[in-house]
């Protein structure tokens, strides 16, 4: 179980201190599939980064399986079963797709194993497994490889930051199918930051974040229509 308690992240802005996250508390039960959504600049990515250790909260506490991981670094959290898919993943000159997948899996992967992760994200595996993760790949390709590394890591908690960003329609369909399988297997806790209806509708629960705060949290069925009404109304708070 993941518990976020009173998380605040304050930065110095031009007009003084500014809270990117403001007293955020959230409990995610084991093996639940949560989608975090909300307007741009609302704090979604920052919250995900704080959970992974990529950003440091000014105040608050993060408990993972009952253990306080607030002061652990990224690698320590990764070893405890937290993983993260970047919204804009980096490229690596000279590092092959297979290398990244093997680092993620923590062991040597045979050809079929490496390819299976790429197939899950809609890549024709044999064309990619021995390619460098460099500028010869498009942004969408790198993004799908990034998601494949999270799948290869097979952590108990998988966080994906806008996995749909930069991915074409055909690959997105395959990706949605993969997320649906993850959901249906109910073996992992999944947190996805997304604006995509097809991903949002997979969720057990939807969390709406705006202005650095959780505005609402609830079952997908109830929440989706409310969010749409809110989008139409042009306001951040659910009515």
């Amino acid at each position, binding site marked *: 179980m993941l518990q976020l308690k009173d998380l605040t992240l304050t930065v110095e802005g031009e007009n003084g201190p500014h809270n990117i996250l403001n007293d955020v508390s959230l409990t995610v039960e084991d093996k639940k599939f949560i989608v975090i959504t909300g307007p741009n600049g609302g704090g979604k990515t920052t919250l995900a980064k704080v959970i992974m250790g990529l950003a440091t909260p000014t105040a608050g506490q993060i408990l993972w399986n009952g253990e306080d991981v607030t002061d652990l*670094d*990224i690698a320590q959290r990764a070893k405890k079963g937290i993983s993260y898919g970047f919204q804009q993943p980096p490229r*690596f000159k000279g590092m092959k797709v297979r290398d990244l997948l093997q680092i993620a899996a923590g062991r040597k992967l045979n050809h079929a194993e490496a390819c299976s992760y790429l197939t899950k994200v809609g890549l024709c595996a044999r064309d990619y497994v021995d390619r460098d993760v460099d500028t010869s790949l498009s942004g969408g390709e790198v993004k799908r490889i990034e998601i494949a590394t999270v799948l290869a890591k097979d952590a108990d908690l998988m966080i994906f930051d806008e996995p749909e960003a930069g991915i074409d329609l055909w690959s997105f369909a395959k990706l949605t199918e993969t997320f649906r399988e993850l959901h249906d297997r109910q073996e992992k806790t999944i947190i996805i930051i997304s604006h995509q209806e097809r991903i949002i509708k997979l969720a057990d629960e939807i969390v709406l974040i705006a202005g650095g705060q959780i505005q609402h949290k609830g079952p997908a069925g109830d929440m989706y229509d409310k969010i749409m009404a809110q989008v139409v109304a042009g306001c951040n708070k659910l009515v």
Partner: protein
Amino acid sequence: MLNEIQKRILQEVADLANVPESGAVNIRSNGKKAFRRNTDNIIIESKSDKDGIDIHIKPFTKKENVHIPVVVTETDRHDVVYNDFFIGEGAEVKIVAGCGIHNCGDCDSSHDGIHTFHVGRNAKVTYVEKHYGEGEGTGKKILNPQTVLYLEEGASVTLETVQIKGVDDTKRYTKAVLGENAELVVQEKLLTHGEQYAESEMDVFLNGKDARTRVVSRSVAQDKSVQLFYPRVEGNAACFGHVACDAIIMGEAKVRAIPEITCNHVDAGLVHEAAIGKIAGEQILKLMTLGLTAEEAEEKILEGFLR
């Protein structure tokens, strides 16, 4: 025969645990011939006018290897050797050279390998040269290779040079003259640390129609080491050339890259690029999310970059 130090160096520079069981071999140790073996198609002969060997590879020799490693284990040894390769038409060979210096003394030890390749029509050569230094003495380990290549029509050479560890000072010069439809690929990998100095200068002349070259130099400069790259490509016919210098800089190191391209023909297409920078923070963070420590992540990034 070779002692344990020599065997270890042989392993480092030529991936040989011992003398290979097949193929042509010439092992040079401390300025003298330590072992030689010819094959039906590859004849190695000592020069009569100066120190060095001539390697004759018969036309249409296929899939044979030549190993010519050099080992220096004496301090104050300054070895200069001239090796000339004559590769016959249509031959396909892999040549593994390389030099390792073990210097435990206070005086410098050096090896200057001056290699000239005459590559016949449609011959295909892969030349691998690995440099390595070790030893606790204060004497420097110095390697100054010169590689000169003449490629006839349709010839193809892949030049892989690697210097990863222990060489205090190196000045490399490479010159290649390409005829019609000839191809040269240069893959240079270099890592310097401490206060080491490395310089790599190159002249590639694309003289024949449809000649082409691709020069890729990747380096890592750590600590207070200094690196200088000066690859020059000249297009004198309808040809194509691409030069790329990529360097990762760390600590207080300094790297200077000056790729130069000259077109003397309207259909010569030459491109150069150079990039020097530190390891991107996002790369380390990404690998940390996969469970590596920052140090392990850095090591993996460098390992991939220099592969």
